[in-house]
């Protein structure tokens, strides 16, 4: 029995390591390019295979057959090591993500995670932060000033955004009292409340920091195409570049997975206690998980096609001067809400209503502001037909 359990773990590792890059290459990249194409009034790749579905294969062939170039005077070993250092931690972190509840296969119940360790969340944070070494070393070893600047930017950025990210998760830990990702999901099932509601603020801080952690727009400064000419990966080509690419996208998957697990009830279907919505159970739990993760990946793409890029000092300012204090205050608020009603969840529910109300209010105010600005704009410059 024990042997088979070990074997099963190995099988799961192999499946994970084999499927995630494939998903990245074939689904996410294609989806990103097609969705961005849609948002930007153009088509996106549609030539390779039906509707461009085989674009991933074409990209793979291109990257693998490209010349693998190491610049003269580069630190060859470090230059080689850097992309590896980005990918491996990213893939490792996936081990503790619960993709769904245990599945019954005959008499055996097979959990849909590789390992449920009692420090799961900490493990994810710890392992993903190793990935930054890949970027720093890659930038430094390339013997290129632009790459060096990119590497330094990523170092500063990742270190400063780890802090608010960790702190935002602390407020969730107050509610779960467990670091195990499986237990976090089970707790949300038991109290019929996704932590995104009492932890709305924490979620926003987490996701903003997460976007910054993965170097994506609007925080894509380390690669900043238009400033640093791809930054840390300027001097990388072929498979090594593909590894950086894979690392970045796997990072996105992890941030999304953790967001779903911690804040959005993991594999749980929404509103389990509303009888009218029972038909939602048709979708298997794993399906729910995928849908939710897909939504966050979509958000990444959405951000990319909407926002300009922050400047380096502004990025640091946002992290240290805004997200960090707000995250600390949030811990206090959540702690008070929990302490006010010990042993029950009333405090969390009340907090959910407050946060929800504030969110709706702010959303409406932002819309109003947008509307007014548009009106001013049109008033300031008369319409052509008004002449």
């Amino acid at each position, binding site marked *: 029995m024990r042997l088979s359990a070990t074997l099963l773990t190995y099988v799961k590792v192999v499946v994970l390591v084999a499927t995630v890059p494939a998903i990245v290459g074939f689904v996410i990249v294609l989806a990103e390019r097609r969705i961005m194409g849609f948002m930007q009034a153009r088509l996106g790749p549609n030539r390779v295979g039906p509707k461009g579905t085989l674009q991933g294969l074409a990209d793979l062939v291109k990257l693998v057959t490209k010349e693998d170039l190491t610049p003269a005077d580069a630190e060859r070993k470090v230059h080689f090591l850097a992309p590896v250092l980005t990918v491996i931690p990213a893939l490792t972190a996936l081990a503790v993500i619960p993709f769904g509840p245990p599945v019954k296969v005959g008499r055996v119940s097979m959990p849909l995670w590789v390992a449920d360790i009692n420090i799961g969340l900490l493990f994810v944070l710890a392992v993903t932060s190793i990935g930054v070494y890949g970027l720093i070393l890659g930038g430094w070893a390339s013997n290129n000033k632009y790459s060096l600047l990119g590497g330094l930017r990523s170092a500063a950025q990742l270190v400063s955004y780890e802090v608010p990210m960790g702190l935002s998760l602390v407020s969730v830990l107050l509610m779960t009292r467990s670091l195990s990702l499986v237990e976090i999901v089970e707790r949300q099932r038991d109290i019929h409340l996704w932590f995104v509601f009492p932890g709305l603020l924490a979620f926003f801080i987490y996701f903003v920091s997460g976007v910054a952690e993965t170097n994506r727009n609007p925080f894509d400064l380390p690669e900043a195409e*238009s400033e640093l000419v791809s930054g840390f990966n300027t001097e990388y080509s072929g498979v090594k570049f593909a590894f950086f690419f894979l690392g970045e996208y796997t990072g996105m998957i992890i941030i999304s997975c953790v967001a779903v697990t911690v804040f959005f009830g993991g594999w749980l279907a929404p509103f389990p206690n509303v009888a009218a919505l029972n038909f939602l159970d048709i979708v298997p739990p794993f399906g729910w998980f995928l849908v939710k993760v897909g939504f966050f990946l979509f958000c990444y793409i959405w951000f990319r096609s909407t926002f300009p*890029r922050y400047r380096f000092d502004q990025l640091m300012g946002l992290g240290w001067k805004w997200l960090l204090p707000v995250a600390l205050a949030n811990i206090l608020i959540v702690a008070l809400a929990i302490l006010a009603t010990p042993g029950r969840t009333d405090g969390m529910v009340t907090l959910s209503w407050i946060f929800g109300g504030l969110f709706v209010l702010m959303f409406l105010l932002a819309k109003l502001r947008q509307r007014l600005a548009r009106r001013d704009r049109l008033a300031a410059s008369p319409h052509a037909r008004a002449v």
Partner: protein
Amino acid sequence: MTSGPITEAEKDRARATAEAVRAASAPPPGEAPTLFSVQEMELNFGPQHPSTHGVLRIVLRVDGEKIIEAKPDIGYLHRGTEKLFETETYPMGIPHTDRMDYIAAATNNHAFCLAIEKLLGVEIPRRAQLIRVILDELQRLSSHLVWLGTSGIDLGAVTPFWYAFREREQILDFFEEYCGARLTLNCMRIGGLPFDLTPGWVERLMEFVDDLPDRIDDYEQLLTDNRIWKKRTVGIGVISAEECIEYGLTGPILRGSGVAWDLRRAQPYECYEELDFAVPTRPNGDTYDRYVVRVQEMRQCVRILTQCIERLEEGEIRGKVARVIKPPAQEVYASIESPKGELGFYCVSNGTNRPYRMHCRPPSFINLQALPRLAKGHLISDLVALIGTIDIVLGEVDR
């Protein structure tokens, strides 16, 4: 030199050169560097760089990411255009002007023709004047659209680029239908225009122009009130009106600093005098204000285009010009408001069929002078924004 394996002698030479360069740029012997001593870095920005909008090279001295000094190095696209003018007859010069500001060829043609027309004292028929203004304004729109898209990309906003280029494509379609070319138009002649408008052109243009205010609002919605966009542009590269004038800056940069100077208003040419349009200005002189000025100029273009289309009537498209153009010996300067600023041609004729000297006042070149001043003290990321806000075309800078 022929290609082939690099010999040892060549390697030695290269090493010696590198050594010499290193020795020359080494800091003067003095204090030994400590852990906290600041080391400046020299960064070569361009000529192959996605944000220099061509082959501009800027040598930067940076402290971390902060710019201590920025030295533009130009000339990578120098083709001796001004000298070429001297070797060819007057009409043969027009296609060369296409290659100067290749984002806005029509305005170049216009300024060149205007100088020679001034030399000859030709009167331009009204229809030709109106069509010239239409072409100019379309060109201004397309130039501003290119500027909007590319400077958005410089700051990481990719989407406005595609919207702007969607409209620009349509404008290029109009040009193509008119003169057969999309970029290097060669669409004006001394004394008027080469062709009349094709049937239906004006109606289609009217439809397009009617649609434009909404499209411009699309771009504005993405950028104007965007918090990050404002953070990246407000207070970046501030230049006062006095400094602008000292540097000789013109166009949206000058107007962004609060000076309502527009040659279409100040020294009206063609039929601008009778057209009703505003000269947008902004007080602060930063990158954001220059952005707003350009966007509002696009809205004014729409107004001008509508009025021109309404006034369009049948008539001649070319004034009375001799087949062989031999202007009397004299010197003239004629300038127009190009999308980038004052574009002028200074022509010296000596009575032959070729100009004795043809000098161009290119707005991009003169506006680029301000870059070291604007960039000092800002970060590398801002430099990208500043190159974008000056709106240079290297074909015009180098000529």
